[in-house]
């Protein structure tokens, strides 16, 4: 413990707290030695293109916090050391609400990791974003598929590359339970329904689900609908739906809801370990899959990041306690539709050092640097699978890099927030609680102006 007690009052005031804390020493502060760079050493060779901004600072704002924020800081540590750029990252749980306040108040961060293309478009349309530099754009085009880049392109202007990603089209299950009961992983929708019927005949409920998420309650259900929509319709229709070229209460959307309803609103299928259909609304999404580990339910549809929600000691692996299979397509001939999400590195400033960081974050070097630290998935095609340790992350990266994959972004993040984070969420809550498909869709449609 470094006690450099220059000002005496400081010591007096903080003394008590400090003494209490010094008893248990732990945690390491990551103090970046901003300014001094060792640009000439060999390990700094990959950062040659980003040199010349020594002593500069770049502020980043995102929704990533706690341990994941530590991992972020670690991932660009070497970049900081080599270029002399200091990166200040701030993560907040109130990111979506606070970012517009800061931007409107003239206190925007240099870079923000925006997980909603809809929000990104709003900033772009209000001329509050800086377009990505030519270097960033070139780097992004090199490393990401056009499917991804179109989400950060507004009216022909490109605003930034994706960073992390997640695959949402997963169904979690217990390999152990499957083996004991002789169940097999389904590869088509029909097989999945058959399996559900088989399981329903035993005393285990086949599915568990939960859509409670505090002030974001409802989003897991919107993911369900989007995944089914991608399977019952072509990707083009999905795009028309998310851009409001077809109305929200189009019969094709209703069809998707009704099909999802055959599982979610089926009392024979749900809600293992929690109760009936109505319990879905009040079950938190973090806990929703946990009954799988207790043998109370068999299947849970949730994104790759659910790997971190399992109780401590649960082994996530293909032969472990839990694992996930790809949410099967209805017609495999149509390819492999994948629903996912991710965040985009967008700039509110165009100082050269900001652009350098923005370019670096789009690079393969960065993606691999972050992937090595673990628990991370990216659609960056430079990601080396050998750097991805976690089996579910590996599966996600494989799916994202697979040529037959038809990727589509989470629809509710594409829609205007009033719908995508408002009436769509609320509509799903009503729908789960017994609201009929037509009136729920009508309500959402009328809110979309």
């Amino acid at each position, binding site marked *: 413990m470094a006690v450099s007690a220059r000002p005496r009052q400081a010591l007096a005031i*903080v003394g008590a707290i400090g003494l209490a804390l010094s008893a248990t020493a732990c945690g390491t502060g990551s103090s970046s030695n901003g300014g001094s760079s060792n640009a000439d050493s060999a390990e700094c060779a990959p950062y040659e293109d980003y040199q010349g901004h020594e002593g500069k600072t770049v502020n980043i704002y995102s929704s990533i*916090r*706690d341990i994941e924020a*530590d991992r972020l800081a670690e991932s660009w540590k070497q970049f900081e050391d080599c270029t002399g750029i200091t990166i200040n990252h*701030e*993560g*907040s749980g*109130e990111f979506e609400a606070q970012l517009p*306040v800061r931007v409107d108040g003239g206190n925007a961060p240099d870079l923000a990791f925006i997980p909603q293309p809809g929000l990104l478009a709003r900033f772009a349309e209000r001329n509050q974003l800086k377009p990505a530099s030519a270097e960033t754009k070139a780097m992004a085009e090199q490393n990401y598929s056009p499917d991804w880049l179109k989400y950060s392109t507004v009216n022909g202007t490109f605003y930034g590359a994706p960073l992390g990603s997640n695959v949402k089209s997963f169904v979690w299950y217990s390999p152990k339970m499957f083996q004991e009961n002789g169940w097999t992983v389904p590869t088509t929708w029909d097989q999945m329904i058959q399996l559900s019927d088989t399981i329903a005949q035993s005393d285990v409920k086949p599915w568990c689900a939960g859509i409670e998420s505090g002030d974001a309650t409802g989003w897991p259900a919107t993911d369900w609908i989007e995944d089914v929509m991608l399977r019952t319709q072509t990707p083009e229709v999905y795009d028309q739906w998310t851009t409001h070229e077809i109305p929200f209460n189009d019969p094709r959307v209703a069809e998707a809801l009704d099909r999802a309803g055959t599982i979610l609103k089926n009392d024979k299928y749900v809600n293992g370990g929690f109760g009936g259909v109505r319990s879905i609304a009040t079950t938190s999404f973090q806990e929703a899959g946990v009954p799988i580990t207790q043998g109370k339910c068999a299947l849970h549809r949730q994104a790759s990041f659910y790997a971190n929600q399992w109780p401590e000691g649960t082994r996530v692996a293909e032969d472990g306690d839990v694992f996930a299979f790809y949410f099967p397509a209805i017609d495999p001939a149509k390819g492999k539709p994948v629903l996912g999400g991710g965040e985009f590195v967008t700039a509110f400033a165009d100082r050269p050092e900001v652009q350098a960081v923005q370019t670096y974050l789009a690079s393969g070097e960065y993606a691999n640097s972050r992937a090595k630290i673990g628990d991370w998935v990216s659609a960056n095609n430079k990601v080396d699978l050998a750097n991805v340790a976690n089996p579910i992350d590996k599966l996600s990266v494989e799916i994202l890099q697979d040529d037959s994959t038809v990727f589509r972004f989470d629809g509710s993040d594409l829609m205007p927030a009033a719908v995508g984070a408002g009436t769509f969420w609320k509509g799903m809550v009503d729908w789960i609680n017994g609201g009929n498909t037509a009136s729920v869709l009508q309500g959402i449609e009328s809110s979309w102006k």
Partner: protein
Amino acid sequence: MTTTTPPVAAGAQETSGRPTRAARVRKRLNTHTATMVAIVIAVVWTIPTFGLLVSSFRPENQIKTTGWWTFFRDPEFTLQNYQEVLFGQSASSGQLASYFVNSLVITLPAVLFPLAFAALAAYALAWINFRGRDWVYIAIFALQIVPLQMALVPLLSFFSRGVSLGGITLMPAWNLDGAQNFAQVWFAHTCFALPFAVYLLHNFISQLPKDLMEAARVDGATHPKIFRTIVLPLVAPALAAFGIFQFLWVWNDLLVGLIFAGGSDVTAPLTVRLAELAGTRGNEWQRLTAGAFVSIVVPLIVFLSLQRYFVRGLLAGSVKG
């Protein structure tokens, strides 16, 4: 609002005279019921918090699967939650102690400034005779309804862009850095606290005896002198009372801290760190059980040690005029 003391009402006189035995029995019964009611309220009020306290000592999987009362049947005790809150796993968010210092640095001036300004204003509104003072008072009172959220953007813009009118800069941007950001937080908290502070203090100051003030005026005392030598000592306890409320609000504030202090461990208050504890997807919320108790310690000490002040504080307000 002068305290009106009603004469002992007619009803009371009818039962005057020596209390009968029946009345004494009834009285004892009354006190028993009274004690019971008080205990019931206290228990109902405390149980939820007590549940949180018990939970904060339980391991994560227990918190998430069984009720806190099972702790007494099957005690599984752990300090893990406190360990994580106090000594943190997250290196990038810094040490908790640092946030503690931040909260203190934010709270002290954010209590003192509104207190002093509101006392001055309340005195002027109560005892200086000027045109339109009632309207000023009512306007300040009504400002209590302005939602904090609506004031965030303009105030932030005031700090980061300054004020300019028709191309002329009336006030440059503040351009604060690091610890200087505290000034913004103080400023914001002071603005938001003033309407209630003026309202509350006006209630006390305006109830001071009129003759006292007039006597002082006749003696040739100026307003600043009356304010310092007569009003302040008399309502000092009331000031302490408001100070404690303001302390609680500032200490527990998250919104103003988030916007004006930023989230770095250089300036952000304790609440910002606590909100972060739940993890990126809110899956670690069990840590908040311990977090809540870590952050409650200081306000509770303040309340308990100043409780006597509360009583005396409001006592001063009803000195009979």
